[in-house]
């Protein structure tokens, strides 16, 4: 049994509730359809907003005529960018000038910069009417040339997405770590390659939605929204609206239908409905259609890596140089954060210290990017996994052998990487070996060799990735040293109420991570009381609930940061309970403990219910001992120490608190005629650190694996040469279903995190492990056809086309 041991060396008895497979309490209401999602909210008199969107990828808006909209009864208001330009401030940009000068509003101003960009918003009494009117917005466009590819956007004569910043560059920076010159001098061979990651999206099943209402009396705008980073978004929204945070209340409903990063940059819509409710004095609701969600609801960064890798002939990598060009679409909304977030996993899972990275983020006429499960690290992890395979190929070595040569060894843990990331434990080689044994790697290699003469195309691929969690916002200072956020923090509150019930709250939001269950387990552990007995208050409210400025559910941070805050709050409250009980029971505090909502003496066996202590603490306060304030309410805000808290002159910083890893192994078979790809076996091993609830951890791992498989084999946002998005709904943007999802074998090698208080690692994003293992497996399968893969997405159609190209040559 595991021990709940804090990094300060404090030891508690074996865990009783943390680590238990406790059924998820949230599930009970959700299986009855009793969740409260944003679209379920019906404020009296609610009006509905719909967008008219751009039908071009890049065009000057010559004229917008909205007069026809008003021919439909029920249409109350139509707003365009022209109006917003004079009434709102452009959104704050993370980047410094020149790109920091670009002007971003909730609606297109002067020109449209990507297909599907909102150009006008209609407010009507009914969502059907709003959509009818949206069709009647008449826009006169002057077409402009589009730039879609990241590298092309850097060319001298490339069309400018935002003219006023003089180029398409959002940000560029250099990481010059170790001594690559010497590494390349010592190398036996250099492998050069290009690795591309494709554009896909999170597509949570519930799209973005928000309802804004305005109270004239108090001059407060209240927004209910699915935003997963409410206190990051709030200042952006308030600044755009020109109101103080005290005039803006942000509420996130208890149930959000998934997010996976895709519910952060929705602040543009929140700003707009807030603007409109203040004018119309009625609640205004907007819920994205699926088409809108796929078009602008957050795309993943497309990235091109040009990599040179220096190695010894035994497979040891000595150093690596790369230039990365990251395409963030038309507006950097959470960007250019992605231009530094990849650096959480600079060396991947490998012991490579001499690394040089030139990173450029550029604009294009595509939809805006932002966090998508595994944000910015998926791309970098994928690059490593492709390069490892490229090296193996060049050396004619087995790709697993090359990886064994380079994995960080367990005795080096905690491992301070070349950019000062502190990998917090784990035994990578042992896990990798266990994974290969479970897969029956050798058996599959034999079958592959044996079946090739019959024309069967079987392939095996592996990918090892770091899944970093609990981010350090200071890394954004690499981009902008004046950016007013650093570190990370969250808050926990525990109350023993008047009846003796234990009630917990945190500042996080929840999009399906089962916080009520897992957080209750943490509090239950401290109070040695059945988690069922711990009440948890769900939902986020910037006015009536607790929060820290970093609160939210993103970057796999909730368990690590909010969980720790809650642990501290519970511990502090327990002390207060015991202090009061000491005077009631007249026994020394050292003899007292709590179990099952009773305070008991370990010596006399005497016990009193928590309710008794609560009654004294809250109402019978005359009985309180001197120096003890009334109430049983404890509030703790936790700010982790990242050790390397701030970036140095070489951009070195410990970017996150925990570094989980996972290794995926996939066996695929490619049909030699139809080129359809079938997964025959998929095994995953990971180290999530101390597990609070195995059901939740496994659930996250399976979900992250689904996202990776779907991204690698199916999901692809395809634009034509004119910048028109061809895959804007589920007919053409295909997420995998139950028939495409393979069975998974999940393995865990659990070690405590050496960095987090509870030993927990942030997990859930998954690092994009399956993408690498699948692409590597597919390439391995089609070895006899001599097909080279470059992208993180492969379809049967692509394989056909690549094969056809070979035939022609």
């Amino acid at each position, binding site marked *: 049994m595991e021990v709940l041991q804090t990094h300060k060396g404090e030891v508690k008895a074996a865990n009783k509730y943390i680590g238990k497979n406790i059924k998820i309490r949230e599930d009970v209401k959700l299986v009855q359809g009793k969740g409260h999602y944003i679209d379920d909210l019906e404020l009296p008199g609610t009006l509905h907003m719909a967008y008219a969107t751009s039908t071009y990828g890049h065009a000057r808006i010559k004229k917008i005529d909205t007069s026809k909209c008003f021919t439909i009864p029920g249409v109350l208001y139509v707003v365009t960018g022209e109006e917003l330009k004079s009434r709102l401030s452009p959104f704050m940009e993370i980047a410094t000038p020149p790109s920091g000068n670009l002007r971003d509003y909730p609606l297109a101003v002067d020109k449209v910069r990507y297909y599907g960009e909102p150009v006008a918003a209609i407010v009507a009494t009914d969502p059907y009417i709003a959509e009818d009117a949206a069709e009647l917005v008449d826009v006169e466009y002057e077409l402009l040339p589009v730039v879609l590819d990241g590298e092309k956007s850097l060319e001298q004569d490339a069309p400018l997405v935002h003219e006023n910043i003089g180029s398409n560059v959002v940000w560029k920076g250099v990481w010059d770590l170790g001594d690559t010159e010497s590494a390349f001098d010592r190398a036996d061979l250099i492998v050069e390659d290009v690795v591309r990651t494709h554009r896909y999206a999170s597509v949570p099943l519930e799209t973005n939605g928000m309802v804004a209402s305005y109270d004239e009396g108090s001059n407060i705008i209240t927004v209910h929204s699915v935003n997963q980073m409410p206190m990051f978004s709030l200042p952006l929204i308030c600044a755009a609206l020109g109101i103080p945070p005290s005039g803006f209340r942000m509420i996130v409903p208890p149930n959000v239908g998934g997010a996976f990063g895709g519910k952060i940059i929705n602040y543009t819509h929140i700003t707009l409905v807030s603007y409109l409710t203040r004018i119309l004095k009625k609640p205004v609701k907007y819920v994205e259609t*699926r*088409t809108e969600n796929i078009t602008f609801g957050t795309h993943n960064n497309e990235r091109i890596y040009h990599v040179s890798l220096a190695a010894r002939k035994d497979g040891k990598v000595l150093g690596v140089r790369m230039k990365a060009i990251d395409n963030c679409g038309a507006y950097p909304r959470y960007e250019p954060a992605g231009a530094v977030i990849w650096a959480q996993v600079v060396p991947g899972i490998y012991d490579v210290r001499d690394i040089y990275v030139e990173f450029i983020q550029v604009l294009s006429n595509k939809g805006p990017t932002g966090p998508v499960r595994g944000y910015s690290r998926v791309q970098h992890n994928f690059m490593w996994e492709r390069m490892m395979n490229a090296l193996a190929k060049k050396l004619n070595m087995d790709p697993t052998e090359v990886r064994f040569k380079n994995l960080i060894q367990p005795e080096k843990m905690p491992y301070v990487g070349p950019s000062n990331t502190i990998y917090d434990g784990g035994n990578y080689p042992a896990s990798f070996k266990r994974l290969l044994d479970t897969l029956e790697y050798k058996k599959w290699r034999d079958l592959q060799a044996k079946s090739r003469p019959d024309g069967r195309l079987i392939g095996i691929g592996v990918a090892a990735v770091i899944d970093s969690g609990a981010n350090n916002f200071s890394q954004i200072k690499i981009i902008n040293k004046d950016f007013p956020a650093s570190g990370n923090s969250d808050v926990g509150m525990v109350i023993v109420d008047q009846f003796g019930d234990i009630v917990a709250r945190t500042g996080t939001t929840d999009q399906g991570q089962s916080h009520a269950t897992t957080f209750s387990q943490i509090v239950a552990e401290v109070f040695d009381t059945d988690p069922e007995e711990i009440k948890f208050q769900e939902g986020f409210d910037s006015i009536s609930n607790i929060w820290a400025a970093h609160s939210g559910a993103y970057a796999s941070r909730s368990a690590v940061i909010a969980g720790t805050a809650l642990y501290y709050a519970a511990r502090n409250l327990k002390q207060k309970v015991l202090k009061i009980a000491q005077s009631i029971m007249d026994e020394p505090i050292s003899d007292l403990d709590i179990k099952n909502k009773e305070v008991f003496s370990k010596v006399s066996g005497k016990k009193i219910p928590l309710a008794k202590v609560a009654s004294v603490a809250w109402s019978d306060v005359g009985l309180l001992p001197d120096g003890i304030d009334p109430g049983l309410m404890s509030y703790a805000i936790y700010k982790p120490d990242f050790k390397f808290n701030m970036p140095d002159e070489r951009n070195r910083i410990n970017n996150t608190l925990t570094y989980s890893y996972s290794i995926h192994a996939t066996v695929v078979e490619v049909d030699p005629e139809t080129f359809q790809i079938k997964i025959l076996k998929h095994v995953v091993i990971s180290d999530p650190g101390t597990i609070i609830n195995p059901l939740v951890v496994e659930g996250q791992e399976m979900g992250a694996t689904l996202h990776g498989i779907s991204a690698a084999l199916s999901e692809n946002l395809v634009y034509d040469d004119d910048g028109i998005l061809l895959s804007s709904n589920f007919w053409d943007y295909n*997420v995998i*279903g139950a028939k495409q999802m393979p069975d998974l074998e999940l393995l865990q090698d659990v070690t405590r995190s050496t960095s987090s208080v509870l030993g927990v690692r942030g997990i859930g994003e998954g690092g994009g492990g399956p993408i690498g293992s699948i692409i590597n497996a597919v390439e391995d399968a089609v070895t006899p056809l001599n097909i080279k893969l470059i992208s993180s997405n492969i379809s049967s159609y692509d394989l056909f086309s690549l094969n056809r190209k070979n035939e022609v040559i």
Partner: protein
Amino acid sequence: MRPRPFDFYQPTSIKEASEILHSHEDAKPLAGGQSLIPMMKLRIFSPSEIMSLAKIKEMKPYISETGQILKIGAMATHDMIHRSDVLRNAVPVLSEAAGEIADQQIRNRGTIGGNIAHGDPSTNLSAALLALDAEIEVQGIEGTRIIPIDEFFLDLFTTALDHGEIITEFRVKASPHTKQKFMKVAKSDTAFPMAFVALNVGLSEGFVENARIALGVAGPTPLRALEAEKFLLKKRLDSEVITKAAQIATKDLEPPSDVHASEEYRKQLLSTLIKRGLSSFVG
């Protein structure tokens, strides 16, 4: 997304329905709506008048057997067709094709009549009915007529139905002794198929007696591979013949290109499916 407004008619007899269609040029019949309603929601297609077939008393869903002829009411759902024992035994290709339409919910609601009237080259049933040489009974203001399936599909989303006519019944000959197969390639159940084929081949002592090969997403309409069918006659289905037939069937095709598959790739898929289907009939 939600559809544009429309006027709605709910006739209770075929006569009334024909009259409505006759006097309302824009009226579009609505059966299960599984093709029509999504297009209306996306506002790709927005008829100003919709005429529901749901309450027409003569148009209750049915599947019946009269001697060698199987009759399927136009309002029979894909699910009914897929699960009908009669059809599974007599015309398995139709049953298989129906079972591979989209998903269970769509099969529960979508009808064979609506599916075929849509004139879409990517509907499974069109290929199966072509392979079975089906007859389509239609009724209009001037009475009833029979349209052989070979004459039904004219162009993309265009059929031999006159405005005012409604499909009322499909008839296929029971052919329990022929070899039949429906095969399809699609990325997922929510995606449009990349290619599919429906095969119906009569064999006598190993030699092809008759063959009908129907191709889906192979051109603007559901198509038959007429030359390949002819080529197969009186031949033994060995691998050389099969390969040749697949080649003939696809060589002059011009399937559509889209984000899921190019013309060339679709041809390759169709050819492979034909090969595999025919091969499954021998050995």
